[in-house]
């Protein structure tokens, strides 16, 4: 089981994400943004949180056009797995891998706190360690986490059971309380909260670790 964690200038959750993967049993390779391809045999790509390229222009916009992101797009087009957390979610929407966009928080403030996340579906490699309806505590830390998609897109996400997580108490104005969504083939998850920061009892909560354990279960060679 191999995971690749992409590192951009300004990424700051890359090592946390790598440790969360490692604790679930993955071999992790860190991939610098100037690389033009992913190593052979990567099962999942992690796009970490942070402030890639200083959040210049729009959060994630410049990262989405970096050489490594073209490789990530090709990986997901081939049906490869990927998870984007926080800035990683912003990047995945900017590439078009996931629909919608992340706007400035409705309250305009950067928010750093643990929030209640409701698991909306257990039908994915990321969420099958939970039961639908479970509420877990996972931290958010963002200024631009206000998920926006037009009404048709939100209806499609709901019809296709692609809303992975919602906020129990919407902190940022996200449409339909959406905190995380899945791609159409359910192999790409983007979410603003940080499961890798709630992946060890030392973090104060290990309720995010189930995401990585579930992935390890699905991706373990039979």
């Amino acid at each position, binding site marked *: 089981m191999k995971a690749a964690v992409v590192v951009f200038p300004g990424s700051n959750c890359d090592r946390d994400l790598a440790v969360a993967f490692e604790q679930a049993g993955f071999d992790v390779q860190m991939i610098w943004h100037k690389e033009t391809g992913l190593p052979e045999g990567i099962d999942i790509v992690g796009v970490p949180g942070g402030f890639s390229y200083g959040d210049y222009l729009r959060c994630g916009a410049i990262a989405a*056009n970096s050489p490594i992101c073209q490789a990530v797009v090709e990986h997901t087009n081939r049906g490869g797995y990927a998870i984007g957390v926080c800035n990683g979610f912003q990047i995945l*929407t900017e590439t078009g891998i996931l629909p*919608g966009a992340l*706007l*400035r928080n409705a*309250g305009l403030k950067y928010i750093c706190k643990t929030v209640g996340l409701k698991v909306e579906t257990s039908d994915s490699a990321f969420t099958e360690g939970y039961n639908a309806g479970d509420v877990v505590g996972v931290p958010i830390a963002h200024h631009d986490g*206000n998920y*926006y998609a037009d009404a048709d897109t939100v209806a499609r996400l709901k019809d296709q059971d692609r809303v992975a997580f919602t906020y129990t108490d919407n902190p940022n104005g996200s449409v339909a309380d959406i905190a995380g969504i899945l791609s159409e083939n359910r192999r790409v998850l983007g979410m603003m909260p940080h499961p890798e920061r709630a992946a060890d009892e030392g973090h104060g909560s290990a309720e995010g670790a189930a995401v990585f354990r579930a992935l390890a279960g699905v991706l373990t060679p039979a």
Partner: protein
Amino acid sequence: MKARVHVMLKNGVLDPQGEAVRHALGAMGFDKVEGVRQGKVIDLDLAEGATEADVTEMCEKLLANTVIESYSIELQ
């Protein structure tokens, strides 16, 4: 050639920064402001031979996120 690109949040997309500016103006006594939308202006210095179509492609691929933003191009 120079080009100026205006990028604005689309109508219907909430602009919390514009709203905050509107509130601040109201609080300062400018009571005739009914709405504020905040956007970006990007000036491009272009080499000979660049065309409006090139700038349009730049907008579509990078300068604007057309999920939430609209853009307009002024060639100068």
